[in-house]
């Protein structure tokens, strides 16, 4: 059986004796006998490392690895530069705890400070936190930031990712929010639908169906009614589309997975959150700040902790403790490797390829469900996306996400022209 206990049997005996115990059972004499597990747990026997490695490899082989992926819908297949994997596998970063002890944690603290800076630059917002669990939770936490006793209504566009809408609804149920869904018209949110007495509105750019929303107009309408604007935005799109700040968002959130995290059957992912200066003290989670040490040298620390659970307990702005630090590091290294030009290039290639796919499909006689401008995803009318996807799967292609009345295609820089042409040929069969 496997074990990670370094002490030999002899050492354990010596230690027991020295600490004044007659046996291991003696260590547990405080636990009432009727509460103890008697006999063995119903688990398999332990295994050697070699056996564990084989077993896990076997399980991984029961998953289908596609050679070509044309699906996004909240999880995007991008190229991950080798330097990203190399940096985030450094043992110090992998095995450290939350950096409570600043003197021996300057490295990880600085990496978070740099991450916060990059998120501010990307979103155009003033302040960023150190991350939350994922994009959906980031949106739900943003709604919590806006909660007020007078305004219970929370407006959520139907164009927001279905999982994000569900998470907002669950958090909102617990906090007694009144969630109002804004239905889409021709795939887009209608600014006319904004009611007066809402605390905030959540919109997504590009929306779930790939369309580019008129966020500026929505934000202007919202602000005129005193509604806080929460924009959930794909970070890749920020390389080329206007930033959340340019759109007029008060809080920018989103799923950071496209910034260097593999698909991983859904996680770990990264929820990023940034806001205007005014909302700084309402941000949940860890935040790193720059200061000096007792000798005047530049230093980084976890700061504004008066918001947090370990200080404020039931009065804290959120309960968050562990976040997604290593994923935030991943995003930083990814953005550093690409730089401003590289990120723009990724965004441009994703969009160009998606538009190429759309035009080729149109040439082949297919129609798009919506006529609005899209980024790197679009809905094609399709009666039986399931059957189509089954056919594509046989060719090693993961087809688009089935949605009502159609199929949601996605392209990234990973899809070469050759691959796209092959897909169109298959779809046309």
């Amino acid at each position: 059986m496997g074990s990670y206990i370094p002490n030999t049997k002899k050492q354990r005996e010596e230690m027991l004796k020295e600490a004044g115990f007659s046996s291991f059972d003696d260590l547990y004499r405080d636990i009432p006998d009727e509460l103890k597990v008697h006999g063995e747990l119903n688990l398999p026997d332990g295994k050697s490392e070699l056996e564990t490695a084989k077993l896990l490899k076997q399980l991984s082989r029961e998953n289908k690895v596609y050679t070509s992926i044309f699906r996004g819908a909240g999880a995007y297949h991008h190229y991950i530069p080798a330097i990203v994997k190399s940096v985030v596998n450094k043992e110090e970063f992998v095995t450290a705890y939350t950096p409570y002890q600043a003197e021996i944690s300057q490295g990880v603290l600085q990496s978070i400070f740099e991450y916060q800076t990059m998120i501010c630059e990307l979103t155009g917002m003033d302040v960023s936190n150190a991350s939350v669990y994922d994009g959906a939770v980031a949106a739900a936490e943003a709604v919590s930031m806006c909660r007020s006793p007078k305004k219970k209504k929370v407006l959520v566009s139907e164009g927001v990712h279905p999982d994000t809408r569900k998470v907002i609804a669950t958090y909102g149920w617990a906090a007694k929010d009144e969630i109002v869904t804004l239905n889409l018209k021709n795939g887009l949110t209608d600014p006319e639908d904004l009611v007066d007495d809402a605390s905030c509105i959540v919109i997504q750019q590009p929306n779930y169906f790939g369309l580019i929303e008129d966020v500026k107009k929505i934000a202007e309408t919202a602000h005129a009614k005193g509604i806080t604007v929460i924009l959930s935005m794909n970070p890749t799109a920020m390389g080329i589309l206007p930033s959340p700040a340019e759109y007029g968002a008060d809080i920018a959130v989103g799923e950071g997975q496209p910034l260097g995290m593999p698909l991983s059957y859904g996680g770990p992912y990264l929820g990023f959150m940034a806001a205007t200066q005014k909302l700084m003290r309402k941000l949940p989670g860890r935040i790193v700040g720059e200061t000096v040490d007792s000798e005047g040298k530049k230093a980084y620390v976890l700061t504004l902790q008066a918001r947090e659970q370990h200080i404020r307990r039931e009065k804290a702005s959120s309960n968050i403790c562990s976040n997604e630090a290593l994923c935030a590091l991943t995003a930083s290294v990814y953005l550093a490797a690409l730089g401003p030009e590289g990120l723009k290039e990724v965004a441009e290639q994703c969009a160009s390829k998606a538009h190429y796919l759309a035009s080729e499909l149109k040439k082949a006689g297919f129609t798009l469900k919506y006529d609005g401008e899209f980024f790197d995803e679009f809905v094609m009318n399709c009666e039986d996306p399931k059957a189509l996807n089954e056919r594509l799967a046989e060719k090693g292609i993961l087809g688009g996400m089935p949605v009502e009345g159609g199929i949601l295609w996605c392209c990234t820089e990973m899809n070469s022209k050759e691959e796209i042409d092959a897909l169109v040929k298959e779809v046309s069969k």
Partner: protein
Amino acid sequence: MKTLFERSVKGRRCTILPENDVPVYEFAETRAVAPRLPELSETDISRHYTKLAQHTFGVNNGFYPLGSCTMKYNPKINEEAAALEGFTQIHPTQQDAQGSLRLLKTAEKYLCEITGMDEMTFTPAAGAHGELTGLMLIKKYHEVNGHTQRVKIIVPDSAHGTNPASSSMCGFTVVNIPSSEDGCVDLDELRKAVGEDTAGLMLTNPNTLGIFDKNIKQITDIVHEAGGLCYYDGANLNAVMGIARPGDMGFDCIHLNLHKSFSTPHGGGGPGSGPVGCKSFLAEFLPSQRIVEEAGTLKWEDRKDSIGMVRSFHGNFLVVVKAFAYLVTLGKQGVPETAKNAVLNANYLKHLLEDTYEVAKPGICMHEFVLTLENLKKETGVSAMDVAKALQDYGIHPPTMYFPLNVHEALMLEPTETESKETLDEAAAAFLDIYKTIQENPESLHDTPHHSYIKRPDEVTAARHPVLRYRFDD
């Protein structure tokens, strides 16, 4: 250390992408102001992060007795398993993911067996996220049963800060009850606190003083008789896994920290995983979907009365892969053996220290113990903080400081089972050496650590005049 932005040189870049091989699409409206991301070569990036790593202290750097955080060694085979292409390249919505489903289903079975629960979800991404989810189950249960007056959650004052914070987030009112001297639940206080408005109780056992609450069955009975439910905070499970099960203690739902008890790394503050388990009467309320088997094939199926979703997709899947690899390695023998040695190591280290330092609660401890430096501080002026910081000069990560709140000048030590006798002996020697310094030259401890990259930071200025991002010159 220079930041990435200070190392940036205009026009410098890595070559990552091939030329675009399709016509370029032009957007109607584009970004006005470009993000000032750093422009670097791969050499720059590699050296920058190597430097940052050198100023980061992980479990691989040395002893990490951070109480309540279970900083055990993170086995490499777990990392290797989670890096397999058959796990990393899987889209969360793809149908043919039998391997992922089987892994999740089997991990659920093993963890239910260890905890005495009937069903489990892996959706919550961290411990506090699990707490929130578990409390939502309690809320839903009362709602479904028409007990809308049950709005209060009882939390002992020795609890982790996340417990009351999660309760508030879930829309409950928190009732703090004082613990008895050993951090255990004061049964009289509990009886006074429960009533018609009790929704539930949140508890960790062993508690934050490292003591197993012997009255646990009475405690859960009192809450149940009052109509409330009992929530188990699994932060301290490492002491009792395979030895005693929360389900048998009378708990209705629990969360686990896979990044504590089940050896997945902390990553400098996540990603973690906080699966929530419950008894069958709460199972329909669990978030997201459950995995069912149909003719030998596994698939996701909706729950009848789910609270909804608490995170997208299926949670931090790769973290579960790591914990699963650990469980497979340990097996039925290794799980209790782990707990026993965690408790042995804690008692051994406590034994080495207790003649010198005052233990907050003398006697047997579980996986951790708490020192109180209250008297020492009165006599010498040396605080828990001073001692903690001094340990850094010995290559030891400081224990948890000033927690639990019901102990003054607290230092909470959790050595874990993956530390050797030699490491514990060396750590004890460091503690005793510091004690000698306290007697001879207490003043010298106020500005420890002496050998770290920075001295103690000015946290007050950091909070009063927040600088939360790099400021560009232009």
